[in-house]
């Protein structure tokens, strides 16, 4: 994608119908505004700077609130592109301010120290997200084999019409849910033991589907990335019959900026 216009809007004197979409905060030394990077509505990514920190922004029409699929994709593409060239602190999706003055006053000046500290912590590091999904059939079969009560309840309810034996079904589901919880803890610990020596920090996320095993974001130093990936590959191989292990990233450090 390239910018559709070569005339850049003056961010300090925007017409009333335009606003400023904020992607994230970077170091003022970033030269992202000299690239062809575009975001929402194919608008070029520009910088609003204050001291050593700068907001990466784009101009959007105010009457058009962001929230469509491609807006989400554009938001994450811009942040990932920024993260690939230097530290970036993501701002929550959908944030639009009225003027560059607001961006400076409400985001940059009031929090400059915090932002600089965060950028410093993120420098030379990237986020990866590890997602483990059970082979649902295999792991449920384990649960049935390991717990006689589950096996009995399953036999009792499986051929009944839906809605019958409600109490038995709830009990069955509860037992299975707890058994899976225990398996998750065990299996996730195996993955964590393997990768923790290679990461700066980690941030687990919730999941509620039957096949959810783990989803954890990791902040990884650039020079440990190979070791991190090799450790994951080894553990993925060891558990591949029961678990699909996925590695997403590198991406912007969404999970390591507070909130």
């Amino acid at each position, binding site marked *: 994608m390239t910018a559709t216009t070569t005339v850049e809007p003056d961010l300090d004197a925007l017409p009333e119908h335009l606003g400023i979409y904020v992607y994230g905060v970077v170091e003022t030394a970033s030269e992202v505004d000299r690239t062809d990077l575009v975001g929402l509505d194919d608008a070029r990514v520009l910088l609003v700077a204050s001291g050593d920190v700068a907001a990466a922004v784009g101009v959007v029409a105010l009457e058009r609130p962001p*929230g*469509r699929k491609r807006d989400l994709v554009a938001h994450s593409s811009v942040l990932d592109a920024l993260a690939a060239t230097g530290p970036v*602190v993501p701002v929550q999706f959908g944030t*639009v301010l009225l003027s560059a003055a607001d961006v400076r006053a409400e985001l940059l000046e009031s929090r400059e120290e915090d932002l600089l500290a965060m950028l410093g912590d993120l420098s030379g590091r990237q986020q990866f997200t590890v997602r483990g999904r059970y082979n649902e059939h295999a792991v*449920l079969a384990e649960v049935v084999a390991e717990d006689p009560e589950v096996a009995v309840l399953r036999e009792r309810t499986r051929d009944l019409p839906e809605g019958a034996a409600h109490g038995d079904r709830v009990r069955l589901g509860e037992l*299975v849910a707890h058994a899976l919880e225990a398996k998750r803890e065990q299996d996730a610990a195996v993955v964590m033991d393997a990768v923790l020596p290679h990461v700066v920090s980690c941030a687990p996320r919730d999941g*509620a589907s039957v096949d959810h095993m783990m989803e954890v974001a990791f902040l990884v130093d650039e020079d440990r990335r190979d070791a991190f990936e090799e450790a994951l590959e080894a553990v*993925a191989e060891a558990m591949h019959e029961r678990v699909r292990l996925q590695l997403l990233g590198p991406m912007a450090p969404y999970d390591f900026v507070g909130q």
Partner: protein
Amino acid sequence: MSVTSQRRGGGYLERPAPSGLADVVEVILDKGIVIDAYVRVSLVGIELLTIDARIVIASVDTYLRFAEATNRLDLYEKGGKDLTEAVGDLQESGAGRKVGGAIKGAKKAITGGDDDEDEESRRPAKRPARSRRSSRE
């Protein structure tokens, strides 16, 4: 379509292609620093929806979904299969992937907007986001 974009030399670690909608939604939806609500012009009502999706975790409905998944299992009693074969079956049939639909549904509601057709026409080969999870390696 495969979710595995760059599997290195027969490795087991999957590397999904970036920027699929389902991944993007899960990864970024409620993340990032927040600017005061009185200053910003817009912030889509996203937080509420993600919270809704998480509430279901320890409910009777959830237990019923787990029970349903367990009852869908086709173990050795029927057809004389052993566990190993049953595992193979999963990969063939895609059984049991509907659980979790409520959560994906809630998230889908956030972004399933007016530009669906738009999205389709730009990338005709793209599958609906809901089926991404069922893509086989």
